């Protein structure tokens, strides 16, 4: 279970990006982080991953605190970046092996984890090419496969569907569901509300560096769509039906 409490952060003095951010992701739960551009979603994810130094607050995964037991914490978490930036000069296979070595995964285990994922994402023929020669989507698929090598307790994904083809999106959705079914937590940020609505047990909507609303979707069927709720929360006004963008057609 991930517990984030009282998280505050700023890049420039007196300009807070996050203010007293508190939320949790239970074991077996899929949580979606939503919010407008620039509200601090990626900063929150970076803090949870330890990519940025912790200024105020605490982040714990199970019994391990990011601040007190960073290595134990890191062993139990993994991440898929939105930027597709993995080591460009390694081949896909070398990258997968490197990540597995870093998490000290034995040869037999990594074979068992990687092989079905490689088949599901259909990337076997690309694994001997340098990553820099691959398309964005293929890079993303390799990054997703590598991120599951340590069977993470918490799987963090930042805009994971970007660049993926239809089949791969489907595989990824299945993977996310199967992780949750195994009792592992998943936290991802996305702007695609339909995916969040279909996948998530919990939606955390952020605004101005803090949590504006947490919506429990599991077992709470609602007539209102997530899009309407979201628009209402971020704009503080109910969304009118038939909204259209006025265009000046001369």
């Amino acid at each position: 279970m991930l517990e984030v409490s009282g998280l505050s952060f700023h890049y420039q003095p007196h300009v807070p990006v996050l203010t007293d951010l508190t939320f949790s992701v239970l074991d077996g739960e899929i949580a979606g982080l939503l919010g407008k551009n620039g509200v601090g979603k990626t900063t929150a994810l970076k803090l949870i991953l330890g990519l940025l130094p912790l200024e105020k607050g605490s982040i714990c995964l199970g019994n391990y605190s990011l601040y007190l037991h960073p290595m134990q914490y890191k062993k139990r978490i993994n991440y898929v970046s939105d930027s597709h930036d993995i080591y460009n000069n390694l081949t896909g296979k070398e990258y997968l092996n490197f990540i597995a070595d870093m998490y000290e995964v034995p040869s037999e285990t990594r074979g068992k984890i990687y092989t079905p994922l490689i088949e599901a994402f259909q990337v076997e023929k690309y694994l001997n090419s340098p990553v820099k020669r691959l398309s964005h989507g293929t890079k993303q698929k390799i990054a997703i496969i590598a991120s599951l090598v340590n069977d993470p307790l918490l799987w963090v994904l930042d805009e994971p569907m970007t660049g993926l083809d239809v089949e791969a999106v489907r595989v990824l959705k299945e993977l996310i569901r199967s992780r949750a079914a195994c009792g592992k937590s998943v936290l991802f940020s996305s702007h695609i509300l339909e995916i969040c609505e279909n996948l998530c047990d919990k939606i955390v909507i952020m605004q101005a560096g803090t949590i504006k609303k947490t919506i429990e979707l599991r077992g709470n069927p609602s007539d209102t769509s997530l899009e309407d709720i979201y628009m209402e929360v971020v704009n503080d006004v109910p969304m009118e039906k038939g909204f259209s963008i006025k265009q000046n057609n001369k």
Partner: protein
Amino acid sequence: MYRWRKVFQLSKTISKINFSFLNFRYKLKERPDTYFIVLTCFVLSMIGVFYYYYFQMLGRLYDGLSRLGLGALFCWLALFAAAMILSIAGAFLLINIFCFSKDIEHLLLFPVRPCDIFTSKYITVILFCYGIEIILLLPVCIIQMHYMGDISVILTYISAAAILPHIVVFPLAVLVTICLKIAMLLKRRRTVLAVTGIIVYFAGGMIGVLLSNGQIGAERDAYIRLHPGIKLFCIILAAVFICGYYYLSNLVIGKKYAIYDKEGRIRSKAMKYNSSSKLRSYFKKEYQTFFRDPAYVINGLFGIFITPFLLTLSFRISADAESIEQIRALVSAPEFSFYAVLSALAVIVLTSAINVVASSSFSREGASFWITKIIPYPLKQQAFVKVLFSTSISIMGIIINCLIFKIYFNYSFIQIGVISFVGILFAALWNLIGVFIDMKRPKLEWTNETEAIKQNVNVVLSVLLCIAVSTGYFYAAAKMLQNGFAAGGVITFLLCSVCILILLVCKGIASHQE
């Protein structure tokens, strides 16, 4: 006229894309932090010190030559040295701007002809060569003007400076353009072809120099004695070179240009998952990411391999067979053998100090830096593996230097053993300093790989710091010898002090807070 305006606008943009230090002025507009102020002051003061010594050295050279009645040789020597430096710098700039830069992929989308882009790139290279020339030749011009009291030397230097980069860079630029065209036709990687072309060009030049056996430069005063009117005409010739390149690139490249950098697969065995230790795996990753990128290989290994090459070449050109025999005799003579060891050590220490591999090791991670932060491998341990990797590259340079000392200067095995042992310790220290500096503030935002390694303030800082420490060591060793210290005492001092410094920097890295 419109076309040329566009070409010059393009060259301005290309300069800004490829040389991020040009955006320094934007940094000045922001509120500078303490690190920035301290760093700028340090770099400026170091540059000031080096420039002061450069002036002093030139002054002494002019004095010496004047006493021998060879005052006119000073100008020729300065121009020759500038031409040599420009040919090396020009080749690097050409490779970086024509091959490594990714700007062309975006620029080709605009309504411009390929020759416009190529000419803009050529102008960018020339402008930077002018920058290098000003730094090199301004003190020469001032000294000669001051000593001779002759204002006309200004015209000689200005005209020479205007034309020299073109003479050096133009043939190389044409060669690179032809290589790029061939790469396009063959659908092969452009860098490999262009670099091969440049190496063949330089190798040809070198063989020519060696075969001429010192005959080059017989007509060295010819340019200095030229009529001022002809010298003025040389300045106009610079524009002719630019126009010439424009039409030649149009002729070679034509209307269409495309890049084919998609290469085949890397040969590897069937899908197997072999586990290794974290250290081994991380070291392997460092090796693979470095050696598979031509930008890293060329820029990173240049400093290491150029020194032994220049060492032998300079002796081959300047010394005859008899004087080389005399040097060999001195090296093996018991009373001079220690001095021979110290001078060889000085070469190795300085060569290792000009090290860009260590001080760019974290910066090279670039956008993939997040991986180093999320993997359960402490950053300080990663830093030590990076030190290990960069030291292994420095050791390659030390081995080559030692081979030259052994084969060319006839050093004994004991001398080589001492040189390599102390040299490796110094190299380890420089690499630790480099990694430590880069670990603190890595430059992660770059578009071209060259930026991470060549336009990185950490690299400049590390090189300056290592040279400053080396200078301190040379001074201390010289003082010890003057005061009658024995060879063993000097070597013990060097070993102990280097070990202490290594331990201090290791402690600094180990105390790094993630």
